[in-house]
């Protein structure tokens, strides 16, 4: 560990120091931002160990690519993009070993979600934020990896359709249909959870 204490240094100065090879400055960045990076990895993979490994790999790549960070976005946003790309690579590798579910195949042809009845009553009305977080988390776990990825990138990362398509490597049409399916499925899951109360 270096002798210098970086705990009160701002992110911009930490990045500058880390670029010069100061590992202790980078360690402080890891300490500050490890939770949101891990959380993003978990929201995409839904596997704790995979999320730990992928967020660890993201930090290593972040160190190697520090020269490419020019401050156009916040450091967290930049790191989040790195971990998202790693998660998508990971999910692609997993998909090669997984059979497509019937839902996924039907979703591509636009069948399933058209038949779901519209959820008229807002299923999350009146819920406390903490309770809502639990329900959202449980519902996200029910989605397939592909649907969850699009939903997470749109809703949590505020990406536009075009950006999601480029990140995931699919057409804008595929993004739109996956997002639509994911949202309709989430609404149905949240409504079911409400009925169970």
């Amino acid at each position, binding site marked *: 560990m270096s002798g210098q204490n970086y705990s009160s240094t701002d992110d911009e100065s930490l990045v500058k120091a880390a670029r010069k090879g100061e590992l202790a400055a980078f360690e402080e960045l890891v300490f500050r931002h490890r939770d949101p990076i*891990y959380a993003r990895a978990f*929201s995409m993979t839904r596997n704790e160990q995979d999320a730990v490994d992928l967020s660890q790999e993201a930090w290593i790549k972040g160190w190697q690519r520090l020269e490419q960070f020019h401050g156009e976005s916040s450091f967290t946003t930049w790191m989040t993009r790195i971990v998202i790309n790693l998660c998508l690579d990971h999910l692609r590798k997993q998909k090669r070993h997984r059979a497509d579910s019937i839902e996924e195949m039907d979703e591509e042809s636009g069948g399933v979600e058209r038949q779901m009845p519209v959820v008229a009553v807002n299923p*999350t009305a009146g819920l406390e934020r903490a309770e809502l977080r639990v*329900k959202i988390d449980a519902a996200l776990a029910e989605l397939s990896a592909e649907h969850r990825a699009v939903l997470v990138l749109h809703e949590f990362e505020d990406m536009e359709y075009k950006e999601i398509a480029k990140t995931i490597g699919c057409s804008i049409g595929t993004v739109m249909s996956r997002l*639509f399916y994911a949202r309709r499925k989430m609404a149905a899951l949240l409504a079911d959870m409400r009925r169970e109360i």
Partner: protein
Amino acid sequence: MNQEQQLKLQAFLDGELPEREAREILSWTQRDSAAAALVAELRNTRQAMAKAEPHLSLPESREFFWSKIEREIQRREPATASAPDVSIYAALRRWLLPAVAVGALVIAGMIARFNVPNATVETVADADTPTVETTLANSDATTYRDASEGTTLVWFSAAADASPVPNKKPTAIN
């Protein structure tokens, strides 16, 4: 309502439509209750997610997580490469000289080994003795070695910690 219409409603909600098209869709939702209901459902889901992204913490301590990252960073630091020497004799020299040096060291080591009867015992005994470093300034480590069973006990403790040994701290023995 076909899939294309449904996706247009979603794009309208997400602000992804050009202005003229967005106005047309808005007008449609004001006339058609089914279209309005679908937009309302999509909007509710979007708002719920915007409010309630799950907050998670990394399930490993800071030190442990960082130690793995640091190790990998150092392992992957690129080694400097020397410029290749094109001449064949230079290439042979590059292989032979180190090979000769390594071989000479091995021969010297083997000669020393065979000519010094007690060296083996001393070497093994030194290797069996553990080297211990403590992380915290106010802690120490107690070492106990049972050579007959080949067991080493290393106990890290701060001043207030209970010893695993009854009565008093053990002393290292052979």
